C-alpha cells in the first residue's frame, strides 16, 4: 500500500467531552462496526474506564474511508499519562481536538492541544455536542482560537450522539491530515506507543511503523534494552484483532512476540531488526518514574497473598505502576506502590479492590524527595525513615509541578488563595474568553497529592479544571517531623513536610491520635519534634477507673472472657513502650483522611 493512501489520526479531548462516542460514530459511519453490534464505547475495554469516562489503554482501529486506510489511534485522556499521550501522538499525523460546546475549553483540552502542536500534528478543531441546549459554539470557537492561534471561523461541528456532522469530519481527515512519510524500503523502524497484557497471548505491543515493515517470523530488537525477540504475529484492529502478514511503513498495528511480562516493553521504545546497528532510536524516549507513592495493605493479614497476586496481575497490564513489598509495624505486611500521578493511583486502587476482592488499607499518598548529601551524592527518598542524618544533608528538594487551571474569571481570587495556601506561586494568567481564564501556577507536588483537585473544584464552584506537568525538583525548606509517643519515636507516624506548616501538621497529627488512641493506665505524652526540638505536645489522660465491681463464682468465666477480649484488642495494637496504639490511630495519620476529603 502506498503511503499516500494512509492516514493516522487521534482524537484528543477533555474527559467527558465525547471522545469515545465520536470514535464509535466514526467506526459506525465507515462500516467497521454495524449498528447491530454497535456497543457503546468500543474502544474502551475496561469497565472502570467506561465508568469513569477515562480511556486508560490506548488502542488503534483501522477503518476504510473512500479508497484510503485510516487508523484511529486512541490516546489516554489524563494528565498522569502525559508521556503516553505524547508517544501516541507521535504515531499520528493529525488530531481531532474535540471540545464540548457546552463546557468549553478545559485544562486538558489545552494540555493536549499543546502536546499535539509539539508533535507537529495537523490539528482539526471539532465542536461537539451541538445538540445540547446549552451549546455555545461561537464562544467555544473563540476560546479554541485563542488557545491555538487560529481562525475561529468555519470550525467543524458535530453531534457524536446523533451522528450529525460525522461525514464532514471524515472528509476533513482525508483532506487535512497529511499522509505519513517514511521509507518502505529501509530496515524496519517502529515506535512502541502502547502495550497491553492478554491472559492468552501474553504481551501485545502496539506499534507505528515509520520505515520498512514488520513481518511475522522476523527477529527484532528493542533498542532501549537491546533485547531480541521473534515476531510471532502481527496484525491490525478492525476493530477486533486481525492477523496480517505485515505492518507496512506508515501504518499502525500490533505485534505479538514471546514476551511474558510488560517489564521489558517500554513505551516510546524503538523496534529495529535484530543484528542491525544503523537504525536510530526514535527521539523522545523516557522511562517514566513514579512520582506519587502510597502504601497498600490488606485489611486483614491473611489476605496478603491474595493482594500480592492481584498487584502482580495489575502490573502485567501497567508497567508504569511499580510496587515492592514492605512491612509496616503499624499495618503489617503490604506493598509500597508508585504511580505516575494521582489519577493513576486512584484507578489502580479501585481496580485492586474490585479485582482482588480484598479490602485494602491505603496510606496517605506522598512524593519522592531528592536529597543532595554533603558528599555530593544525590539520593531519592520515599519515606521519612530513609532520610539521611540531617548533618549529612546539604539540600532537600521536592518535586514541583506547573499546574494550569481553567476557570471562570471570578474564581481566580479563591484559586489564588488556595495556591498560596499550598505554597504555590503565580506564573501567568491568560484570558481565553470573557468566561474563561487560564491560571498557571507552580505548586509543590506534595501539596497537591492529598485533596487539591477537590479544593480546585470547590474554589471554582465545580467549573474549574486542572492539568499539570512535572517541572522538576526544587530546593525547599523541608523538615522531618518526628512523632513521639510516650517519648519514643514512632517512625511510621513521622512525616516529611515544609517547615512553614510543620507546626500545623504536627498539631493535626497529635489531634488525630488523641481521638484514636484509647486512654490507658498511664498518661500518654504525644509530641512532635523537628530534630530535638519539641514543637507540639499534648497528652492522653490516664484511665481513671477501670474495675469490675462484682466477681464471684458465677462471674469468673464471663469476666475472663471480657479480659481476654480486652487483651485481644490490645494484641492487635502496636506496642510503643508502655503504650498500645490501635491501627485506627495509624490510619488517622497515614490514611486517606476521609474527613479532609469531604471538605
Amino acid at each position, binding site marked *: 500500500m502506498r503511503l499516500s493512501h494512509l492516514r493516522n489520526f487521534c482524537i484528543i479531548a477533555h474527559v467527558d467531552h465525547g471522545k469515545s462516542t465520536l470514535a464509535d460514530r466514526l467506526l459506525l459511519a465507515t462500516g467497521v462496526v454495524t449498528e447491530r453490534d454497535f456497543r457503546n464505547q468500543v474502544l474502551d475495554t475496561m469497565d472502570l474506564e467506561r465508568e469513569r469516562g477515562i480511556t486508560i489503554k490506548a488502542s488503534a482501529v483501522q477503518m476504510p474511508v473512500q479508497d484510503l486506510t485510516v487508523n484511529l489511534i486512541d490516546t489516554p485522556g489524563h494528565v498522569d499519562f502525559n508521556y503516553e499521550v505524547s508517544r501516541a501522538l507521535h504515531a499520528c499525523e493529525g488530531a481531532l481536538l474535540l471540545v464540548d460546546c457546552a463546557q468549553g475549553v478545559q485544562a486538558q483540552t489545552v494540555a493536549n492541544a499543546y502536546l499535539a502542536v509539539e508533535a507537529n500534528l495537523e490539528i482539526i478543531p471539532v465542536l461537539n455536542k451541538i445538540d445540547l441546549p446549552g451549546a455555545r459554539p461561537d464562544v467555544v470557537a473563540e476560546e479554541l482560537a485563542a488557545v491555538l492561534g487560529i481562525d475561529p471561523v468555519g470550525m467543524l461541528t458535530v453531534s457524536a450522539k446523533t451522528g450529525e456532522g460525522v461525514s464532514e469530519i471524515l472528509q476533513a481527515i482525508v483532506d487535512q491530515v497529511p499522509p505519513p512519510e517514511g521509507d518502505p524500503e529501509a530496515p524496519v523502524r517502529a515506535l512502541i506507543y502502547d502495550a497491553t497484557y492478554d491472559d492468552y497471548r501474553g504481551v501485545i505491543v502496539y506499534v507505528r511503523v515509520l520505515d520498512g515493515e514488520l513481518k511475522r517470523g522476523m527477529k527484532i530488537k528493542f533498542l532501549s534494552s537491546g533485547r531480541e525477540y521473534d515476531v510471532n504475529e502481527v496484525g491490525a484492529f478492525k476493530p477486533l484483532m486481525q492477523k496480517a502478514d505485515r505492518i507496512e511503513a506508515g501504518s499502525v498495528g500490533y505485534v505479538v512476540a514471546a514476551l511474558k511480562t510488560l517489564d521489558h516493553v517500554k513505551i516510546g521504545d524503538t523496534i529495529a531488526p535484530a543484528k542491525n546497528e544503523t537504525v536510530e532510536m526514535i527521539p523522545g524516549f523516557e522511562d517514566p518514574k513514579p512520582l506519587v507513592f502510597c502504601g497498600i495493605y490488606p485489611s486483614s493479614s491473611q489476605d496478603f497473598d491474595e493482594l500480592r497476586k492481584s498487584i502482580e496481575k495489575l502490573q502485567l497490564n501497567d508497567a508504569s505502576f511499580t510496587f515492592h513489598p514492605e512491612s509496616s509495624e503499624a499495618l503489617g505486611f503490604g506493598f509500597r506502590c508508585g504511580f505516575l500521578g494521582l489519577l493513576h493511583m486512584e484507578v489502580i486502587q479501585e481496580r485492586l479492590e474490585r479485582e482482588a476482592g480484598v479490602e485494602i488499607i491505603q496510606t496517605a499518598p506522598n512524593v519522592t524527595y531528592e536529597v543532595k548529601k554533603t558528599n555530593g551524592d544525590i539520593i531519592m527518598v520515599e519515606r521519612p525513615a530513609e532520610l539521611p542524618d540531617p548533618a549529612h544533608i546539604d539540600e532537600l528538594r521536592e518535586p514541583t509541578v506547573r499546574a494550569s487551571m481553567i476557570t471562570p474569571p471570578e474564581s481566580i481570587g479563591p484559586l489564588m488563595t488556595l495556591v498560596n495556601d499550598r505554597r504555590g506561586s503565580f506564573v501567568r494568567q491568560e484570558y481565553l474568553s470573557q468566561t474563561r481564564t487560564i491560571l498557571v501556577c507552580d505548586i509543590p507536588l506534595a501539596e497537591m497529592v492529598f485533596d487539591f483537585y477537590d479544593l480546585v473544584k470547590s474554589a471554582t464552584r465545580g467549573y474549574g479544571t486542572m492539568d499539570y506537568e512535572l517541572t522538576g525538583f526544587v530546593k525547599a525548606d523541608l523538615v522531618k517531623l518526628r512523632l513521639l509517643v510516650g517519648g519514643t519515636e514512632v517512625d511510621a507516624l513521622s512525616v516529611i513536610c515544609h517547615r512553614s506548616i510543620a507546626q500545623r501538621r504536627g498539631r493535626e497529627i497529635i489531634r488525630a491520635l488523641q481521638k484514636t488512641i484509647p486512654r*490507658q*493506665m*498511664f498518661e500518654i505524652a504525644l509530641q512532635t519534634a523537628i530534630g530535638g526540638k519539641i514543637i507540639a505536645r499534648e497528652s492522653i489522660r490516664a*484511665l*481513671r*477507673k*477501670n*474495675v*469490675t*465491681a*462484682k*466477681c*464471684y*463464682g*458465677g462471674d*469468673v*468465666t464471663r469476666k*475472663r472472657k*471480657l*479480659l*481476654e477480649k*480486652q*487483651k485481644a484488642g*490490645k494484641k492487635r495494637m502496636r506496642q510503643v513502650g*508502655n503504650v498500645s496504639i490501635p491501627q485506627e490511630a495509624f490510619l488517622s495519620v497515614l490514611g486517606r483522611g476521609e474527613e479532609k476529603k469531604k471538605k
Partner: protein
Amino acid sequence: MTPRRLDNDRSAVAAIHRQQQAEPSLYVHIPFCETKCPYCDFNSYRVAGRDVDGYLSALAREMDQRGVPRNPPTLFLGGGTPTVVEPDTLARYLDDILGRIQPDPTREFTVEANPGSLTREKIAVLKERGVTRLSLGAQSFFDHHLATLGRVHAARDIEEAYAWARDGGIPEVNLDFIYAVPKMTLREWNETLARAVSWAPDHLSCYALTFEPGTEFFTKRRAGRMRSIDEGLELAMFRLTHRRLDHAGYKRYEISNFAPAGYECKHNLGYWRNRPYAGFGAGAVSYLDGERLSNERGLARYATSVGEHGHAVVEREALTTEDAAREMVVLGLRTQHGVDLAEVDARYGISTRALFQQTIDKLVAGDLITDTDRLRLARRGWRLADGISAEFV
C-alpha cells in the same frame, strides 16, 4: 489465653485438683425476687406466678442426682432473694439442703436477703437452721436512689430488717450498698457510709453501679435516657469508700468488700483463691476438678433438664494448667491478700515468673502492683484492676 486446650493438659488440671482433695464449697441458687431490679443481671425472676414448688423439687432432684459435697467448708444461699418465699417454704428447702450435708456449727452459712421481704419469722427460721451470716441488700439509705434502682423497700425498712437480724441472733450481718447511681452526690454517699458504719455491721460490700448488657439500665443508657455519673465523681466515691471504711476498721480485703479482720466472707474468698465449689440451681456455676460447669438459666428448661438427665449442665469449660494459673493470678489480684506466685507454680507445675516477669516489671514500674512476698495491687492499682488483670490473661 490460648485457644488450644490439650486433652492431656486438661486431665492434668483435673488431677491437680483431685490431688488437693479440697472439699468444694456449696452454693445454692434461689432465682426468685419480689421484682426484677432494672440494673440486675443475675439469673432471677419475679416470683409472682412462678412454680416455686416445682423449682424446689427440681433443685432437690439435682442435688440427689449430682451429689452434694458432704462436708463443704462454706455454704452460701444466693439469688435472687432466697428469703422471698413463705417461712414454711424457706424452712422446707433449708432442711432439704442441710439434710444432705454433715452438720457443722462452725461452718460459715450465708443467706442473702432483702429488707423488703424479710420478716422476724423468716429470721427465726434462718437462726434455727444455723445460718451464721445474713447478707442484706440495703443498697442505699436514700429513698430517691432506691427508687432509681427500682427497689421495693424504703430506707426505714433497712433499719427494721437490720434490727430484727440482730435481735434474732444472726451472728454476722453484712450490708450491700451501691454507689455511683445516676444523680448521686459525693455527700450522699459519704452520709450513707457514715450511717452504715454507725450501725457496726460485721461486713460491708460496696459496689459501683455497672451497666450490664441485657439489663434495663444498659438499654436506657444506650438510648440516651440515662447517664452514668461523671468518671471523676465515681473515682472520688471509690476512694472515699476505702478511706472512710478503713478508718472505721473495715479493711478492704477485695475490691468491693470490707470487713474487720476475721469477718471476711470465707465463701467468697474461696472464689478469689481459686478453690473448688459446687453450685446447684438454675444458672448456678460449679468449679470442680479444674472444670467449670454452668447450669441452664431458664426455670422451665432447668426443671426439664434435671428431670430428664438428673443435671442441667449446659456448658463445660476445662482449663489448661496455664489458663488455670492465669485465672488464679487474676482472681487473687482482686484481694488485699494478693497472690503467691510460688503457690500457683506449685499447684499447676508451671513457672508463672517465666510467663509474667515482663508484665510484672512493667506494672511494678508503673506503681500499679507490688511484688514482694506476694503479688498485690498497689494503691493506684485498685481502681485500674481490670486493665491490670488483662495483662495476665
